[in-house]
């Protein structure tokens, strides 16, 4: 499977209720020597729509983009509805729709450095 197939795909819960779209994935990398593979520790799921897409693509989700103020005010509200889904809460990775557990909606802000 390729990253481009995962990013942007539909996310649904056990009862096929839409949760959002895969906007990004959090990957664990070693500082010193790289392992043979990077484990994907979770998915960043955001609502459909341009503002959410931009907020995640332009780095506002990680809080790395500190400005411009106008952009922040415009885009950060869209992140209210974004959530981080740990890998072990994902039942089916697709291809096609990604299925997650209902209690997989982990909003804890620091999870995966998601604001």
């Amino acid at each position, binding site marked *: 499977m390729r990253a481009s197939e995962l990013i942007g795909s539909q996310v649904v819960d056990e009862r096929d209720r839409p949760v959002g779209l895969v906007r990004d994935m959090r990957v664990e990398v070693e500082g010193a020597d790289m392992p043979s593979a990077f484990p994907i520790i979770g998915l960043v799921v955001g609502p459909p729509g341009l503002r959410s897409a931009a907020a995640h*693509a*332009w*780095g506002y989700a990680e809080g*790395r983009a*500190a*400005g*411009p*103020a*106008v*952009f922040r005010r415009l885009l950060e509200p869209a992140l209210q509805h974004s959530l981080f889904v740990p890998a072990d809460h994902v039942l089916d990775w697709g291809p096609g729709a990604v299925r997650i557990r209902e209690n997989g909606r982990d909003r804890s802000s620091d999870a995966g450095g998601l604001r």
Partner: protein
Amino acid sequence: MKQAFAFTLGTLSAIGGFIDIGDLVADAQVGARFGLRLAWVTLFSVAGIMCFSEMAGRIAIKTQRPALALARSRLGPRFGLFGLIGSLLVTGLLVMAELAGVALALQLATSINYLLWVPVAALFVLIVVWRLPFETMERLYGVLGLTMLVFVVAVFQLDPNWPNMAQSATTIAPTASESWATYLFFVVALIGAQMTPYEMFFFSSGAVDHRWRPRDLWEMRVNVIVGFPLGGLLAVAIQATAFLVLFEPGIAVEHLSQTALPVAVALGKAGLIVAIVGIFAATFGATLETLFSTSYDVAQYFGWSYGKLQPPARASRFVTTMLAMLFGATALALTTINPITVTIVAVVCSASLLPFLFLPVLLVANDRELMGEMANGKLSNAVGTATLVLSCVVSTLAFPLLILTKGGTV
């Protein structure tokens, strides 16, 4: 010594990039039709391009990558490709226009038809990009480009009625015989001619090739602070000379020769010759800049190796792109298509592309993790955002105005 190189980099970017065929045509046309009533546009353009070039330079110093190199990871491949194809087409047109500009300068000097000069100019360009080291190139055309200052001298020589000039410069409205549509069209054309994005990328790519480090930050800023206002001054000077000599008799500028004519009136033979040398240098420098930046854009999008510091065989895709561009531009110029018309169309199209090129630079310059303490401050963000918004307005107006005013001919 390094200081001198760095300074000429700034000057080259200012003269070759700021004053190129687009300005030589658009500024003279504007001056002849509206006097100094569009001088305020140059202020905005200078502020905007200074702001984004400084950002681009900072990004280049911090990340050792040209500004556009990080654009794709923000805009994604599709959006990025759209911007790439757009700027490829526009800058391609500009390469042709600049090349024709060189040929027209040679025609003015020899009265031999410019079409015969086009291949010669192309060969010239080829030899320079192939054989001359980056530094030599910069110093040569940076210094030669300074002869454009003759336009400033000409303004004083024509000893204008300063109150009139000030009055014209502070009026933001078309002259009696002109429509608002035409006025706005030339606002767009001037912005397109003066806020040339390739200038910004050439500036940052140059900074990378120079292997600048954070300690060179202020050197880079000096280039921006000296270079671009100098370019802006020259632009206004061209508008002023056209205003003082061509406005009264109601002459419409349709040729490069008419840009030089006021200098002849003011300073005679010597001045005219210096002006022709300046036009030659500016268009030649701009040909190199446009040629490089288009190839840089392509190489950066696909992640190819690029640059003057790479031996050609190491960057064969980059070199091939550049040669193809030069060949295409030469062929287009030889179709006898009117270079002045092409220039106006090109600058308007380039104005409509500005947002696509400014946005990623603004985003990357704000990335705290990448830029650390060199990330954008309040000032850069305020000016940058304002410029971006302005460029969005310009970009939406560009094509409707181009058609409505039939390219400013009505």
